[in-house]
């Protein structure tokens, strides 16, 4: 959002608040306690009321006359009152035109202290496979290396929400702006639009949501970070989003009302490219001759298709060939007992058992992990897509050319009297559109391949199970979680295992105000082959654009122990 737009927005909010001054609202006295007819019972001026009561006692007026004048006074007050209300209840609420228009403004802030300890492997080799850093305009790979200790304060969540309905309560809107930075961010964050969508709930079995929002795919991502049992999601949870790039996307979903029907469906179509972007952000490089890949200065890429001329021009990122692709998502969920909802933990202290099972499938074709040219994985193309992949830990897939993601998930949740159990399983079938083994080296420019990748990239799978119990109902909870993730089923020694323990204090008995102390242990294997980071590195003759030493030359298991102390308020 530009600075000018921010000022305009702030001015609009100021005018809105100024117009709804308490003096204006208080004249009718309707905001004291109640809505509807209940408001007016107490709205008569106390002095008038006293005089009338004394008049009845003295016999000046009859009880019937008293009743009539009170009723007429109430009706007059009702007719004179402005048709808007303003109050605070989990946000600043503004209701206009007899609730035809409603605006709720909320803010969420979480402040985190992290004390982190890492083993020597983080210093020697670091992580170049799951969470590589992509730097420079060419997005060359860097390994995330660090010292053994880190002590950081972090503004983990900084959100502003605008939500409500327009015209009537069944046409809803939702806007979420975020200004936070990730825990390991290397640059300051900026205000960004996380959610912007409208929803029609006119037909309970056919709600329609359009815009940008979190894809209804897997339980751990559908749930808000405000209602978790741990300070952070497990790493595996983030890796298995529907599109593989981000938990949010732009598209349309039809669904039925989860609180009305025992079985809920969600059917969605999205760009499949992440938030605030579409498929035009993905591109490849092509020479002027159609079908001949381009992308480098020194000559044709390899293996050069038969009939392609020698290097014609240095053309990069000039072809958008998969803009006709979309992502398709389907989710089905059954409330076996009660309605467990998506929030983690049994905050509500369910009196009866709540059990839900769900499953979902997402097909996201045509993800360009890099252009299929000589400098596999380090060319200019697709920094947006590649950085999203790396940010969620799917860095193993970088450099595999165009791939199709076909992701399945199953989930389960149970809650009863403060106890909760939740689990989820994911499987992602990664289909490379270039079926042959990735070519890593040629003897000459455009020449036949001399060295191939050691094996095909496999699929990805993972699961987690977590449980919690409220030691003091609605106030103090202990929780534990174990997460398992295999980023490449064809590789060994690359498993990522995570254990978390958390002690949570919910100060107001809701998710809105909380302090969490979460201990996490993450063991991240660095085995397996990753293009551009493992030997054999890409090369043309004696030219090694990725260098001659692989980033995993001294790979070991990366172990991290961290304690996160987080304060969060949602107001």
């Amino acid at each position, binding site marked *: 959002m530009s600075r000018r737009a921010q000022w305009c927005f702030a001015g609009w909010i100021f005018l809105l608040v100024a117009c709804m001054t308490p003096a204006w609202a208080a004249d009718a006295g309707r905001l004291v306690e*109640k*809505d*509807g007819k*209940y408001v007016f*019972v107490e709205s008569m001026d106390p002095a008038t*009321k006293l005089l009338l*009561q004394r008049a*009845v*006692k003295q016999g000046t007026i009859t009880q019937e006359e*008293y009743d009539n004048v009170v009723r007429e006074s109430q009706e007059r007050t009702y007719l004179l009152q402005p048709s808007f209300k303003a*109050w605070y209840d*989990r946000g600043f*609420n503004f*209701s206009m035109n007899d*609730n035809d228009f*409603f605006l*709720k403004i909320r803010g969420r802030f979480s402040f985190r202290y992290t004390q982190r300890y890492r083993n020597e492997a983080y210093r020697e080799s670091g992580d170049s496979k799951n969470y590589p850093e992509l730097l420079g305009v060419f997005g060359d790979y860097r390994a995330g290396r660090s010292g053994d200790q880190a002590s950081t304060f972090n503004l983990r969540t900084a959100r502003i*929400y605008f*939500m*409500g309905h327009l015209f009537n*309560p069944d046409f*809803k*809107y*939702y806007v979420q702006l975020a200004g936070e930075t990730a825990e390991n961010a290397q640059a300051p964050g900026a205000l960004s639009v996380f959610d912007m969508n409208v929803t029609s709930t006119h037909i309970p079995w056919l709600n329609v949501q359009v815009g940008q929002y*979190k894809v209804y795919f897997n339980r751990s991502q*559908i*749930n*808000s970070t*405000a*209602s978790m049992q741990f300070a952070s999601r497990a790493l595996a949870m983030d890796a298995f989003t529907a599109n593989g790039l981000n938990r949010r996307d732009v598209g349309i979903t039809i669904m039925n009302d*989860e*609180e009305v029907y025992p079985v809920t469906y969600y059917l969605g179509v999205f760009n499949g490219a992440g938030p605030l972007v579409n498929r035009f952000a993905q591109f490849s490089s092509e020479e002027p001759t159609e079908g001949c890949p381009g992308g480098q200065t020194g000559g044709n890429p390899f293996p050069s298709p038969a009939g392609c001329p020698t290097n014609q021009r240095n053309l990069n990122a000039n072809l958008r060939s998969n803009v006709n692709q979309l992502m398709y998502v389907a989710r089905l969920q059954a409330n076996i007992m009660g*309605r467990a*909802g*998506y*929030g983690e933990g049994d*905050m*509500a202290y369910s*009196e009866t058992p709540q059990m839900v099972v769900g499953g979902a499938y997402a097909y996201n074709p045509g993800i360009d992990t890099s252009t299929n040219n000589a400098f596999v994985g380090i060319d200019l193309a697709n920094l947006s897509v590649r950085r999203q992949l790396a940010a969620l830990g799917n860095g193993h897939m970088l450099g595999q050319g165009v791939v199709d993601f076909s992701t399945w998930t199953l989930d389960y949740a149970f809650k009863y009297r403060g*106890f909760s159990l939740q689990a989820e399983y994911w499987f992602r079938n990664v289909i490379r559109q270039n079926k042959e083994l990735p070519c890593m080296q040629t003897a000459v420019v455009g020449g036949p391949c001399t060295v191939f990748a050691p094996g095909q990239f496999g699929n990805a799978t993972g699961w987690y199970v977590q*449980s919690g*119990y409220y030691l*003091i*109902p*609605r106030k103090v909870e*202990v929780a*534990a979680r*174990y997460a398992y993730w295999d980023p490449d089923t064809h590789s060994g*020694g690359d498993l990522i*295992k995570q*254990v978390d*323990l958390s002690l949570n204090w919910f100060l*107001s008995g*809701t*998710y809105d105000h909380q302090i969490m102390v979460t201990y996490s*242990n993450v*063991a991240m*294997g660095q085995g397996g082959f990753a293009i551009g980071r493992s030997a054999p590195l890409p090369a043309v003759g004696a030219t090694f654009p990725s260098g001659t030493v692989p980033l995993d030359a001294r790979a070991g*298991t990366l*172990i991290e122990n961290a304690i996160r102390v987080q304060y969060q308020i949602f107001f």
Partner: protein
Amino acid sequence: MSQQCCGFMFQRMALCVALIGLSSSCARLPYTTKVVHEDARVVVVLKQEVKALIYSHPVQLGPAELTDILQGFSFRPKQRMPLRWFAEENPPKPVFRPDELEALTGRLSEGLRAAGPGERVHFELHAPGLNPSLSRDVVGGWVAVRESYLYLTLEYVHVQIPIRKADLYDYNYPTPPPPPSEYLLYFEPGRFWVADQQGVSALDYRAFLNAPKIGASPGP
């Protein structure tokens, strides 16, 4: 990953499970045993006490008697320090309005007749909330009777409670009802508001009902 590391993590997992198992005998809340009445305006349910409290239920208290009793109660929200200093300045407000008593007392009488010795009678009075599609206005609490004492505990007094389990606009965010608030209760005439054998404030309802009545002031 090394076997040593795996073993370390599984040890921690076992520790977590043990911790959760041990904690499962901790604090509990009363739970619903019977729904006496439920409609859009009034809900009355019986809840089993988790502590060994023995009441004198079932009890025969008619709607008229309950109306006499309940209209004498007033309240102030119990504030924490330092807000308590300022809250003391506010006079107590009546708990129930006449229309609320009219809706409640019949069902409450029914609940007291149906309750067992270990059960308390919970009630909720519902009205449209400030945003009726989002929340409802609730006056709620529970009553119980032991010997000549009537105990009233208020949990909500005109509190906006969400209608849905998840936010109406933020679908991914659960909205459990706010936990019960604490209120300071008063009763007029004050001489019937006494402490029982355990020092808990209660209404000596038999003495109150047997006392001569003073005419009510006219008007609502």
